[in-house]
Structure formats: structure tokens, C-alpha cells
């Protein structure tokens, strides 16, 4: 495969490929920014355009758009606390508090840099993993999925350090909500109150939009003022501080990129999970974690690195087995099939050039979108200085439109509004919204894989497999570490 490295690169920089890349990136970024729209939608939109196009150019267009989505989604997450896509939800946790402190530029700088480098990391891993990827993919089964979900859930303990009880109440609420809809085991429907719309459970994007954007819009209406609680300084050096911060915490960035790539590789766990686990890792591995949730730049770097490196990872099963690792990949796979390609074992042998172009475009698209992001950061930051009475209605509109757009259903808008009120109440009484989100995302995965494991192997299934056991021990260690540390400190003090 590697002998095609140079020809593929030449192909990619030959006119009109850069034009298609540019168009793809602009469109992908726009879809990422708009809440409710994301990777699957932009790919579905581009699909008919690519019929009859040159295969390589079509790939440049599609992957360029796909690559630009995650960073696009992080921009509204930082500026107005509205994740543009589900994958950017964790960026809200610290990105928005930074914006409130007038450091939106710094957050965007860090996000752009971590995104871009994360994607490059994922692509490099993808390139070298392709020859041995199949073994890696097949290593993970239900017990491992369950342990990953458990690891994600353990993050709740860390984010609710103010009051463990309130955190647990929020988490249980999230878990309860995640049981709405199809029972993943028997296929019967639960807690749907006779509504067809609840058969698939609470959709994540409308819930996120409600919890963050609408909750925030209500807050803005009441508080007036501006998002940024400082005077506008007009300096853009913040952006550079953000870029530098990624290198300052390079170890963290690196570990989170690994987390993102690995989770991307595992089909069925999905991008929505990787950013939470990375965020949790950042929290748990930091000695001074008091500032997290209140605007710690590390809380931006971690999820951003993970949600971009995961795309490289997700391409591993897609290219090796022809099996999509995420919804985006499913749409992409459909597009490739229509173009006459057959992703899978044969494509790797027969069209190594196409595979490499795909990887290059993933990298190039990410670099391009980050550059757009860095250059426009100065203007975008001004949004946080717009008076709340003007901004809040717009946020409200965009949020409701976003929840409608995902599936074109008014029901989702209602879900968003209910979650918005819930979020407002939770914030008032000091309950963690993050805990609800994490439990909602992971509850279903945990439940399904728990039953799958029990059905096939019984309880011992969790503990006889090395990776599953290893993940379990790591999770335990992460939960217990702060207590052990506190106990030791006490002993030393006494």
C-alpha cells in the first residue's frame, strides 16, 4: 500500500481536487455549526451530487465535508453552549465557561489546534493500523463495550464533586430516561405512554440542545447582560494562548487522541462516547481538577482531541471489513458503493491509492477547517459580547430549529423544550447537567451490552477476558484513586 503514497498525494493536490476539498470543508463546517445538522446529513445531501463524478474527486468532497463537521460543531458549543453535533457535547462543559470569562478566543484556538492535531494522529494510526486492523477490531466484544460504558459512567463521580448525592440523583435521572423506548433485549417498548415517537427513546441531539442551549437561553433572558462577563478587549492574542495550551498539555492531548482513536475503531460505541471518556480522563488525571467545569482549557483540549481522532479510528472497520463504525460511516459506505467501490478487504488490495487519498483528505480537511476557525475566531468571539436580550432569542430560535432539523419532527422540539426547563431547574438547584448527559448517552449501551454478555457467557464473561478485566480494574482505580489519595494525605498530615 505504501508505494502508492506519492501518486495518491499528487492526485489529491491536482486541480480541481483542492476546489472540491474547499467546498466540502465549507459545507461540512456549516453543517457542524448548525445545531441538529451534522455528518450524516451533509453526506446525505452530497450523495446525489457525487453520482457520476470521478471517484477520487467524490471522495475528496465527501471526506472533506465529514472532516470539517466535528470542529464546526465545537464552535457553537463554546460560544453559546449549544453543541452543534452530539460529538461536541463535552466541549460545552469547559468551553462555555471560558467564553463567559471572555476567553472564547482561547477556547477556539485550543479547540482548533487539538482538533487538527487529533485528526492527524487518528489518520496516522489508521494508516499504520490498516495491515493489522482486523485483529484489533475483533478484540472488542460485548464485555469490553460494557466496561467502556462503565468507565464513562464513572466520570459522573468526578464531575459531581460538589455534592455526590446530587450527582447521583442526576445520573439516575439520566439512566432512567435512557430506558425509554425499545428494550434492547426483548424488543418490547417501555415507558412510551402510547407515543410512537418514544419508541426509539429520547433522541440525544434534542436532549442536548434542551439541556444546554435552551437552558442557557432561559438563563440569558433572566440575567440580561452578555455571555462574556468582562469588557471586550479586542485583542486576539487569546487565540495564540489557546494554540499554545495544546502544546503545554501535550501529554493530555496525546492520551486523549489515543482514547478517541481506540473508541473510533470499535464499531457501535460511537463518537458520542469518545468525548465524554476523554473529558473524564482529563478530569481524573489532573492533580488540580478544581477548575474543571468552570473554564479549564484542559477540559476543551481533551474532548476536542478525542472527537477528531475518532474519525481515523472509525475508518478502520469501514475500510478493512466494509462494516461501518458509525452513522457517518454508514452513509459514506453507501456513497462509495454507489460510486462503484466496494470498501472491504478487496478495496485495500485493488485500490490502495483511493484508500490513501481518503486518509490524506481527512487530514487536509481538518487542517483547512482549523485554519478557517483560527482566522475567524476574532469575529466569532464578538458574539459573546452581544447583549443577552438580542442573543437569547436567536439562540432559542437556532436551538429549536436544530432539534427540528435532525429528524424533521415537532416532537423533538417538544423534547428540547422540556429538557430546557429541566436544565434551568437543575442549574438553579445545583444538579449536574453533565451527569444527566453522560448517563443518557451511556445508559443504553451499558444495558444492552450487559444483557448480551449475560446471555452468552453469564457473569463470568465480564472477568475472564483480559481487555474487559483490564478496563474494569482501570475504572475501579479511577474511582478509588481520589479516596486513597485523600486517605494518604490525611495520614501524612497526622
Amino acid at each position, binding site marked *: 500500500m505504501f508505494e502508492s503514497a506519492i501518486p495518491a498525494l499528487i492526485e489529491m493536490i491536482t486541480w480541481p481536487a483542492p476546489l472540491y476539498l474547499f467546498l466540502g470543508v465549507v459545507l461540512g463546517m456549516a453543517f457542524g455549526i448548525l445545531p441538529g445538522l451534522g455528518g450524516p446529513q451533509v453526506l446525505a445531501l452530497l450523495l446525489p451530487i457525487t453520482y457520476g463524478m470521478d471517484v477520487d474527486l467524490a471522495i475528496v468532497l465527501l471526506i472533506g465535508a465529514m472532516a470539517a463537521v466535528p470542529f464546526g460543531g465545537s464552535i457553537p458549543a463554546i460560544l453559546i453552549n449549544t453543541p452543534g453535533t452530539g460529538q461536541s457535547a463535552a466541549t460545552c462543559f469547559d468551553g462555555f465557561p471560558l467564553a463567559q470569562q471572555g476567553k472564547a478566543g482561547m477556547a477556539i484556538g485550543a479547540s482548533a489546534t487539538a482538533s487538527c492535531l487529533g485528526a492527524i494522529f487518528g489518520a496516522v494510526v489508521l494508516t499504520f493500523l490498516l495491515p493489522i486492523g482486523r485483529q484489533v477490531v475483533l478484540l472488542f466484544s460485548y464485555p469490553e463495550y460494557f466496561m467502556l460504558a462503565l468507565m464513562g459512567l464513572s466520570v459522573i463521580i468526578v464531575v459531581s464533586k460538589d455534592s455526590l448525592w446530587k450527582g447521583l440523583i442526576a445520573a439516575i435521572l439520566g439512566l432512567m430516561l435512557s430506558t425509554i423506548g425499545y428494550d434492547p433485549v426483548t424488543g418490547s417498548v417501555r415507558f412510551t405512554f402510547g407515543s410512537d415517537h418514544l419508541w426509539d427513546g429520547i433522541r440525544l441531539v434534542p436532549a442536548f440542545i434542551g439541556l444546554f442551549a435552551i437552558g442557557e437561553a432561559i438563563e440569558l*433572558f433572566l440575567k440580561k447582560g452578555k455571555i462574556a462577563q468582562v469588557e471586550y478587549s479586542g485583542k486576539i492574542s487569546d487565540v495564540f494562548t489557546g494554540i499554545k495550551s495544546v502544546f503545554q498539555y501535550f501529554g493530555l492531548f496525546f492520551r486523549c487522541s489515543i482514547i478517541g482513536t481506540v473508541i473510533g475503531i470499535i464499531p457501535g460505541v460511537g463518537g458520542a462516547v469518545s468525548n465524554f471518556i476523554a473529558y473524564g480522563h482529563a478530569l481524573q488525571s489532573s492533580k488540580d481538577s478544581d477548575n474543571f467545569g468552570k473554564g479549564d482549557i484542559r477540559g476543551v483540549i481533551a474532548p476536542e482531541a478525542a472527537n477528531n481522532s475518532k474519525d481515523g479510528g472509525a475508518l478502520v472497520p469501514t475500510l478493512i471489513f466494509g462494516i461501518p463504525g458509525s452513522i457517518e460511516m*454508514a452513509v459514506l459506505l453507501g456513497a462509495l458503493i454507489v460510486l462503484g467501490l466496494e470498501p472491504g*478487504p478487496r478495496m485495500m488490495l485493488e485500490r490502495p491509492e483511493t484508500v490513501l487519498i481518503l486518509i490524506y483528505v481527512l487530514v487536509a480537511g481538518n487542517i483547512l477547517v482549523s485554519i478557517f476557525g483560527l482566522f475567524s475566531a476574532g469575529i466569532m468571539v464578538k458574539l459573546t459580547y452581544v447583549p443577552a436580550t438580542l442573543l437569547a*432569542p436567536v439562540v432559542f*430560535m437556532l436551538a429549536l430549529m436544530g432539534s427540528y432539523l435532525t429528524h424533521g419532527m415537532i416532537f423533538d422540539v417538544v423534547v428540547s423544550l422540556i429538557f430546557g426547563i429541566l436544565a434551568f431547574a437543575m442549574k438553579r438547584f445545583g444538579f449536574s447537567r453533565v451527569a444527566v448527559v453522560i448517563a443518557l448517552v451511556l445508559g443504553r449501551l451499558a444495558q444492552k451490552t450487559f444483557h*448480551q454478555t449475560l446471555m452468552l457467557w453469564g457473569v463470568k464473561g465480564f472477568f475472564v477476558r483480559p481487555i474487559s478485566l483490564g478496563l474494569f480494574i482501570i475504572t475501579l482505580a479511577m474511582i478509588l484513586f481520589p479516596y486513597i489519595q485523600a486517605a494518604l494525605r490525611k495520614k501524612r498530615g497526622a
Partner: protein
Amino acid sequence: MKRETMQKVKPFVVLCLVLALFLVTFGVNPAEAKFPAKNMTFIIPVSPGGGFDTFARMLVPYLQKYLPGNPNIIVSNVPGGEWNIGITKMYRSKPDGNTFGILNWPANALSQVLGTAKFDLTKITWLGNISEVTYVMCVSPQSKYKTLQELQKAPEVTSGVVGLASTAGLGTVIAAQRLGINMKPIPHDGSTEAILSAMRGDVDWVQYPLATLKKTIVDSKDLIPLWIYSKKRSPILPDVPTVVELGYGDLVDLVTMYRPVGAPPGLPDDVRKIWQDAFWKATNDPEFQKKMIAANEPAMPMTPEETTRLISQGIEMVTKYKDLIQKYMK
């Protein structure tokens, strides 16, 4: 004083404007009665990605070509409730020929047979069928059971299914019953995960469309095909027997998936005629057929009469297995 009121009034005015905008955007319902309208809606009751979405979108340009006035066809994914939300939406739309939708057959018969559907599939104005999907039964190389006889004797065989309301899931349950295999379905979120489970050896048995499994069984030989649910052997798998050869020919119709397209009940006769004519021409367009072959799923056009028959026969077939399905769904 005045300024204060202004500030108080301002957010209120803005809110009113927002609400007004909502009313305008959501309230407008283009009540176009003419056919074909400038914009038509093609409802796909699943999310983008996957066969139904891909092939429906592939057909759109050809429908545009043969419908009078070359209307815009807007593809609308309405996923949820195992197809029920999308089908209901199509079923309840105005029968003016400007809204139509694709169905998953025979899986979509399930909600009607179980009595949960808000529609009557036999009343839909069927336009035709896009293609037919042949299923292949595979076992994991790590499985202890590698022939039909071994499977029938096995104390328990695990199978990777995606819900019972899919053609694959429904087909697996029915096939196991008919073949006398003690099967335990292990639910998965998608065919992807189920196929990977079989590759790892976590489950014994999966059955999915031949086009989906081709790369896994022909190109990389990660799974072992035992039989295919078809009347004739497939040129891709010349050594794999058909279920007819094994003596269970009645399973072919139960485990073959169709992609029929229909419009709401009560389409005016003139509109129906124009539509059915255009649909037939579109699915028979040589260029479209070439694309379908390239995508590993040759087009299988059916006349409206054939499609209508397919639907009523399907409902009958699934009704026979109602008790079995209910047992699994509990």
C-alpha cells in the same frame, strides 16, 4: 422612565416576533392539489445510510425523468418506531400523488399483524418495487455447528439479530422454527455489530443480504455460508445450496426482502395511472439498472398488480407465525 419601559418592552417584542416567525414557518402548508406538484416528497422511514436510503436516492433522478413536468423530488428521512412513524406519515398524507414512500417488506407487515399499526397496508396505492434482496445464512468459523444437521441436533444455537421487526430478524426466527433449530436470538443494534459478533465467534449464526455479506464470505472468508434463501444458486456462491435444495422451499418467500414503493390510499385514478407508468419506466431504465447491478443489487421491477399481490401474500404469511413472534417479543 420611557427608556425603562423600552427595555422592558424590547424582549417582549422580540419574543413575539420569534413566535410570529414560528407560526409563519410552521403554519404554511402548501395546499397544492395539482399533480405533479413542483416539489414532491419521497418519505424514507429510516435514517440516511443503508440500502433503503441509498437505493431510494438512486432512483430519484429517474422518477424525475419520467414524471410529467420533471418535478423536484425531495427525499425526507422520517426514521423512528421501526418504520411506523414514516409509514404513518406517508399513509396519512394527502392522496394527491405528491407524497410517496418506500417500505421494507415483509418486515413492515409485523406491526399490522400484531395489531399495533395505524395503517392498513393493503389499502396503500402500490406503485411498484425497486429490488429484491436475497439472504444468505452463515455460520461463524469458530462455531461448533457447520451443517444443517449439526444445527438441528445442537442443544442451543445463538444467532445475531437486529430486532425482530427487521426482515433479517423475522426471517431468522421463522427459519429456525421451520428448520427445527433451537435458536436463541442475541439482539444487536445493527447488522454491522451482529456480523462482527459472528466473525469473533460470539454468536453462531447470522443471516443478512448477500450483497452485505459478500465481502465477508467471498472476499475474506470470515464467515461460512451454509445456504441461500433463493430459488436458484447465486453466481457469486456457486457451491452454496439453496434452501429449496435442502427441502424448505417455502422459506424463500419469507426470507427475501423487497423494497416496494407506495402512495397513500385513495389516489385518483388518473394520477395513479401516470405514477405507475412513470415508476415502471424509471425502474426499467437501463442506466438505473446498470447502477443497481454495480451496487450488487440488480433491480427487480414489479408491476403494481404484482406488488399488491406481494403485500397481501406477505401479510398472510406473517400472520401464520404470529404466535411464534409474540413468544419472542414477550
